[in-house]
């Protein structure tokens, strides 16, 4: 009596052989004429000189870098202490000029 491993091996090798035999099966062809008909309907491929295509390509290629730049800028802008700097600035701006004489009077 053959072992279960041998049987598994036998079945898998026969199925593998069946799979390989499919390659040589004489069925179906590439249908050259029909395929060429479909390709002619598509027409010539767009050439690399097309400015619009080139521009689109460049935009898409640059988009990750642009996105990263926007995120980095947004991060730094939020971290920057803009408000307090503005407050300090307005403090100087609104301070009344006090003369030396006024200071003595007070």
């Amino acid at each position, binding site marked *: 009596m053959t072992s*279960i491993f041998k049987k598994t091996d*036998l079945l898998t090798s026969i*199925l593998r052989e*069946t799979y390989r035999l499919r*390659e040589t099966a004489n*069925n*179906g062809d*590439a249908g050259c004429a029909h395929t060429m008909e479909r390709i002619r309907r598509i027409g010539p491929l767009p050439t690399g000189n097309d400015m619009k295509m080139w521009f689109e390509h460049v935009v898409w290629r640059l988009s990750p870098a642009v996105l990263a730049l926007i995120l980095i800028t947004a991060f730094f802008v939020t971290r920057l202490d803009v408000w307090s700097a503005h407050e300090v600035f307005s403090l100087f701006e609104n301070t009344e000029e006090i003369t030396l004489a006024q200071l003595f009077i007070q």
Partner: protein
Amino acid sequence: MVMDIQKLDDFFIVSQVIEGNVNAFEHLMKKYQEDVLKIVRKHVPVNDVEEITQDIFVRAYQSLSGFKKKNRFKQWLSVIAVRTCYDFWRKRYRSREKPITELSDRHRDWLQHLSAVQSHLSYHEAAQKKEACELLNAALDQLSAKERIIIELVHLEGLSGKEAADLLGWSVANVKIRSFRARKKLHGILAPWIKEMEGR
């Protein structure tokens, strides 16, 4: 003048097609149709071979500008062929009916005869039987599209993990993991059939 298509440089023909000579693509098609057919016949059902082969050449034509001189055209086309076959199964699996898991008496008889297979000749004959083909299809139908393509490429065709990864555009680690899981699942499918080989 009849051109010997075997002697023409593939990259030269590709550049001709890209420059607008659509008909030059026919040379590439004729040169590689048999190679593509070999791949398609193994991966898709007989009735779909012609349609899928046409789709492969149309896809190849549309992505021709992506072909680089350093690549071999046959290899580049093989990648498109395998991925188109994989796409075929992905679409098919979405709309397919539940696969048949019950064996008929004819299949049971075939499985029982396998135990008696001794010589290489009878082994080859057994593989050629209609039942072998039906059982292979039944086993593969129970796998998902990803498991199916991995089993076909790695276990049935004998490609390495790297070769399969290059064809499918997956990482080698991904191929290895999927291959291991798919093989385990296939063993589960084959287990009752192996019991049948013992006899009822």
